């Protein structure tokens, strides 16, 4: 009897760990896990949602090198009252209460060793759709890296749009 319990418990543990590992594997292919499960689809595309523009939250994309992630206080403008009972919004409220920012995990970036100095502003001015570089974020429940920002990919678009392909345009 004792043997049987041992075998069962080992099997149980094995199933649990393998299940957990599988879950982790799938979740990473789905983009990094964020401190608050922010759902872009719900905010941008959902019929009965607020249907926000990208620039509502990433408001400095048109004016600066960085698109910027809004501070929790911006989230709380709506979420003070809307969906205040949901566990994720509660997490958000807890951050706001501590006057802290959630440690968001970056999805798109270039390695420092690439010496790339990207600037959002001229891209917005040239009316490049956010989707062109960031993929279908508006449909994503969790954002992942859909577009591979290789240099060839950048140059390809720059030459099509007659933008500068001088090295010094991006590298310094």
């Amino acid at each position, binding site marked *: 009897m004792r043997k049987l319990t041992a075998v069962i418990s080992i099997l149980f543990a094995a199933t649990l760990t393998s299940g957990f590992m599988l879950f982790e594997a799938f979740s990473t292919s789905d983009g990094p896990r964020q401190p608050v499960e922010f759902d872009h689809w719900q905010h941008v595309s959902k019929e009965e949602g607020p249907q926000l523009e990208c620039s509502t939250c990433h408001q400095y994309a048109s004016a600066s090198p960085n698109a910027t992630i809004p501070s929790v206080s911006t989230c709380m403008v709506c979420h003070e009252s809307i969906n205040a009972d949901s566990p994720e919004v509660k997490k958000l409220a807890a951050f706001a209460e501590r006057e802290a920012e959630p440690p968001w995990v970056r999805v798109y970036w270039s390695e420092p060793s690439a*010496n790339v100095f990207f600037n959002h502003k001229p891209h917005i001015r040239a009316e490049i759709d956010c989707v062109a570089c960031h993929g279908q974020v508006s449909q994503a429940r969790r954002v992942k890296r859909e577009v591979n920002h290789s240099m060839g990919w950048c140059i390809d678009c720059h030459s099509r749009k007659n933008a500068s392909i001088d090295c010094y345009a991006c590298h310094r």
Partner: protein
Amino acid sequence: MMNETEKTQKPQWAMAIDLDRCTGCEACVVACRIENNIAVVGPEESARDRSMNWIRIERYMEGEFPDVRVRFRPVLCQHCQEAPCEPVCPVYATYHTEEGLNAQVYNRCVGTRYCANNCPYSVRFFNFFDPQWPAPLEKSLNPEVSIRTRGVMEKCTFCIQRIRKGEEKARDEDRAVRDGDVIPACVGSCPTKAMYFGNIADSNSEVARLARSNRAERLMEDLGTEPRVIYLRKRDQA
């Protein structure tokens, strides 16, 4: 509203240095180091000529003691239009931009050092070591400029990060660049205002005006390198 030719025509960057005004204070040298994340190699390696200074002050002593006069000349990359450093690079790591700048692409550089050997002005510097900044200098690193690694060549860029910012500002205001849009670190730090920077293709700019001065000269002009740095001779030599 600027017209189409003005918009498409690239500015041609140039610098003018009035030697009558230079006091050799080296404020430009310090400003350049801080602005451009230039690594520090220490006194020993510096004595082996491995220190990096994108701009330096050359001293020339004249006369016998006690009747000595010192003349100063700030020397930086001359951004030659016929740059001797460019054709010798086997990997095209150094090239000429449409704005007349002599550019260095760090990620292409394999460190043959041919360019530095072919530079008559000795203004190219090789990173012999992994970059280091003794505390607290590491706190002053400029996020707008690359950190160069060991084994690559580096040089003055005319503060390309500031040029890009200035051009961006001009575009925002829908006009061509003008004097004052771009001020490289050395120019901005000069207490006697001995240095000028601007678009030499614009005949109304300060550099274009100074380039037409009868005091204007270029360093080692006879080599045919066609530098973009214009020196204004001291008046007693004019």
